[in-house]
């Protein structure tokens, strides 16, 4: 299964696969309806890829993601909810790498982690 890709004029995600597993690096802004649709489809593919590779963990680097509005952020909540509702053997850990200098990350990532404290780590 090939790695998923996300490239829109305002938002892109670089996906790499290394010894530590999959890493998704989000870059740009996620605020339009088009970005939300693209993000939804991308995260569904990302989840499928992680499951197909039986990943133990997935890193999500939000560092270069300057802005995400609440509608787009809902897609990450949905992703996390989907993973957390699976049997434990089919779950994988999500490590969100944050940039504390970015306001939205300071305000939102902690709350995201509370959805599945056993699955989420904010680095």
């Amino acid at each position, binding site marked *: 299964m090939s790695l998923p890709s996300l490239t829109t004029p305002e938002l892109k995600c670089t996906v790499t696969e290394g010894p530590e597993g999959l890493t998704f690096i989000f870059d740009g*802004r996620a*605020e339009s309806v088009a970005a939300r649709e693209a993000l939804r489809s991308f995260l569904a593919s990302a989840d499928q890829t992680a499951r197909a590779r039986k990943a133990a963990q997935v890193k999500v680097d939000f560092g270069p993601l300057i*802005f995400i*509005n*609440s*509608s787009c*952020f*809902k897609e990450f*909540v*949905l992703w996390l*909810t989907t993973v957390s509702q699976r049997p434990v053997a089919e779950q994988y850990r999500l490590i969100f790498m944050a940039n504390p200098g970015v*306001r*939205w990350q*300071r*305000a939102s990532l*902690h*709350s995201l982690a*509370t*959805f599945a*404290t056993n699955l989420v780590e904010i680095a």
Partner: protein
Amino acid sequence: MRFIGNVRHLLGITWPLVAAVLCLMLVASISADIMSAVRAYLTGESHWSKGQKDAIFHLTEYARRGDPRSYAAFEKALSAPLGDRLARLALSSPHPDLAEARRGFAQGLVKEDDIDGVIALFRWFGDSYLMAPSISLWTRGDAYIAELQEVGIGLRAARSSTPVDAAEVERLVARIETINTELTPLTVDFSEELARAAKRTQSLLLVVMLIATLILVPAGLWLAGRFMVRSQRLAIENDGLKREVDIAAKIQSAILPNVGRLPHLDVAARMVPAATVGGDCYDVQPAPDGCWIAIGDVAGHGLSTGLVTMMTQSALATVTHSSPQSGPAAAVCAINAVLYDNVRLRMKSDDHVTFVLLRTFNDGRVLYAGAHEELVVWRQSTGRCETVLTRGTWLGPRADITATTPEAQLTLAPGDLLVLYTDGVVEASNAHKVEFGLERLCAVIEAHAREPVSDIVASVFERVNAWAPQQHDDVTALVMRYQPPAAPAAVA
């Protein structure tokens, strides 16, 4: 944009009539082309008739006098009927040779512009009752033309022999007279038949136009009428829907608290939704020894998120009224349980609410719980703002959030301000996609902190609107000043 919208609406209703008119114009255009081709046939026939008459005259003259100029005139006169014959044979072939037909009609003195129409008419209607009789007469006439050509060749040979073959010349002159006698009525018939064909064609086209008009215009009117009725129905439905949305917006505005002077607190707030119905909410409710203050934001905006905000406010009112002594964390968990049940289980929606609930006390203590934007506290003692993170979780996605809803406390000194706001304030972006941000918000508050709280709210909105004239999200701000009554003066 409004003009384009009106044109679209008009076209949406009238397009069947426009289509009918266009179809009629197409039929009229085709009719005009056909009639033009018919007229070209009539002209061509006159050239054909004149050519054969002149050819007989000049050949007879040549037979009598032997003048080569008469023979040349005969050949020239015969050229037009021979060209028409060439074209007819080219078009009558199972595999019509259009180039040959064009050359033939040009030789037959048909105008260049009319040739394609004449060819088309022959191919489309050559076998029909309109054209078949004319073409039959034309074919018979061409047989005489061919014979006349042969007679001319024979006559030239007889005239060129030495001595002149007078007997052969006599025989051929007699033959010319026979041809002339037989061809003359045929030519008249050909001419009359073509005139009749023209009349029949004209009548047929009139009938076609009449039928097309009788079908297309009523059909267009009927369809346009249907579209108009549907459009009117949609307009009525839209009006109804708009009224309902307006009512929802009024309900949402109506349930916002009338803030002002509370014991120990001056409060001012404003919410401006991006859509008619917003996804932001706030509330202020008196409680024993203080009050409840809440602010929240449902992801997105519009009618569905507006409904969730109203649910949130209703649940808040129920919880705080029924359990006035409970802490904010317990109240937030209870509100979450209601939202999870309504939004997640019943509505099957993935909406979530960022929400923080504060319980203020008259002694300046503020307990709070939930997850929302950072709280801003302006300290009178320093004249600066402090920001406080809210370390809870969002409402809606999970049934039980007790474990992730801590309760925290801060303390206000007399004169301190506490500012609550939604992301529409700090995420308002200018043309360069630069957010208004928390720092600018703090700067506005610090600049206006000693003014009445309603003026501080007005200043925040003024600066946000100036920063981002185009509003994309609901914007809410609530400012409260802790202002305990002055202690009574000691009695001497």
